[in-house]
């Protein structure tokens, strides 16, 4: 696991993340120094209600969060997609498999190593953003930090898919394409379709198909959208289904990956 961290350092994954994170934080600093944020808050909160002030700051935090989440996940998928295929390269895989380690351990080591890399990088940026906002408004809302868990969990689900396709194809392209497709198109589309399908059609087959697909596909849209926002705003998670079904998807993907890896000849 720790050598995946080392690999990430060597492949400049950390440097790349740090530069992007640094640029985002710098942009935030510049905006905060140019805009009189206090004036904006006062104009939005004419009554001066301190509770309302907190809600406005939370909304500012969430606006920044929404902006960077997509970027962070796209980068995380891109940076970690090659971890497993690199291990499976001809000449490298022989060295690993001839050691007294089970194939499951090897694969899970790579999985959790990749997760650790992304956790460190995402924590750095979210923590940086949170500190900036908190200092600027003298408003310390720790619930915002829970977004780290939501982003890392969403990444963990998509990363299990990358691992599976990494083992299956011994390359990173197929996994990346499918992960991006789910994250950018399929999950938001299914989240909407799940609610609207009864209005859109009366055909039971389509309805079952869409709803069935909705439960199978990881719910990245809900995880990073409503669930994360509800936790930050203190509303709490009202429906655990997206978390549970996404977690089951993760377990299934890792399970399939391990079975496939154990059976495969190299």
């Amino acid at each position, binding site marked *: 696991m720790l050598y995946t961290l080392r690999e990430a350092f060597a492949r400049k994954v950390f440097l790349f993340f740090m530069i992007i994170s640094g640029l985002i934080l710098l942009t935030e600093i510049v905006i905060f120094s140019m805009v009189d944020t206090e004036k904006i808050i006062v104009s939005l909160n004419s009554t001066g209600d301190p509770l309302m002030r907190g809600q406005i700051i939370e909304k500012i935090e969430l606006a920044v969060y929404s902006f960077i989440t997509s970027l962070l996940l796209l980068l995380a998928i891109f940076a970690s997609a090659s971890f497993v295929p690199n291990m499976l390269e001809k000449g490298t895989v022989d*060295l690993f498999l*001839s050691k*007294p380690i*089970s194939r499951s351990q090897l694969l899970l080591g790579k999985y959790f190593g990749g997760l650790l890399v992304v956790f460190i990088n995402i924590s750095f940026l979210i923590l940086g953003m949170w500190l900036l906002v908190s200092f600027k408004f003298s408003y310390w809302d720790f619930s915002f930090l829970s977004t780290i868990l939501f982003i890392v969990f969403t990444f963990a689900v998509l990363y299990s898919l990358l691992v599976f396709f990494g083992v299956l194809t011994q390359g990173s392209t197929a996994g990346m394409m499918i992960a991006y497709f789910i994250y950018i198109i399929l999950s938001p589309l299914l989240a909407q379709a799940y609610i609207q399908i009864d209005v859109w059609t009366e055909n039971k087959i389509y309805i079952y198909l869409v709803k069935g697909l909705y439960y199978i596909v990881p719910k990245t849209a809900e995880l990073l959208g409503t669930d994360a926002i509800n936790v930050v705003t203190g509303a709490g998670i009202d429906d655990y289904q997206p978390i549970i079904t996404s977690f089951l998807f993760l377990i299934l993907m890792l399970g399939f990956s391990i079975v496939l890896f154990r059976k495969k000849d190299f």
Partner: protein
Amino acid sequence: MNAIEIIGLTKIYFSSGGRKKVEALKDVSFEVATGSIFGLLGPNGAGKTTLIKIILGITHPTTGTAMLLNTSIDNYFIRRKIGYLPENHKYPTYLTGVEVLKYFGQLAGAEPNSLKKKTDELLELVKLSNWKKNKIKTYSKGMMQRLGLAQALINDPEIIFLDEPTDGVDPIGRKEIRDILADLKAQGKTIFLNSHLLSEVELVTDRIAILNKGVLLKIGSVTELTEKKEEYKISVDAENLIEEIASSGRSFHLKPQKINGGYSINVSGDEELNLFIDFLRSKNYLIKEIVPLKSSLEDLFINIVNESEKGMK
């Protein structure tokens, strides 16, 4: 005692459609004695690497199994006692020589307390001490091969599998590797060598096996296999031996042929050899030397492979 036992190994590869199949190994069985150097020979595509990969758990057999130190290869813990230098090995290029040994030593279950000492010793042994802190992307092919050998020895293994260990190594380096192998043998280690360089195999191995198209064609010691049965070189002080035999009226089946410093003869058995010696002594010829003739490993290899190719057609 045997360090390696191969029991009826068969490996069939199926094409993606499942229609075409390639039999990479066909019911291969043999043993390798503890403390010996064993050479596996065969042309490209013979199944040598597949065999090693099955033994090490990199590829799964279709049928059959193998035992390492009396333990089934299915038990991956046995690999704590195994070292492996694969052909065309590829280490993470961002690591230094020391880091490669440390990393793979940890994976191989090397004793953590002695790992640093062992790393230094092995780098010294393969003459890479001066390069140990350099990134391996700066290493030459020969240096990578020597690092690979050190990596295969990092966990102080009892059996060492070497797939083309001298590939890309210069003649001096090859000699050094041969010396290392001899030292390892003296320490009681078992070495399984897979090499195309027949002259080198001949120099270091105790026993060899020849594999072609997945079939085990021959197995035995180099001396046994290269000895030309009932063919001897006799060095004798005689100018006209061939004529003498013809005029003697003796019914020898042998047909002496002049070779440098003597005659080569084929006899039909030990009895005829002794009769021929009696004949030479009766003629007062001075017998200087009688040596069984040997073919080179290369000749043997080519003959056996060609014969098997004809047999398969």
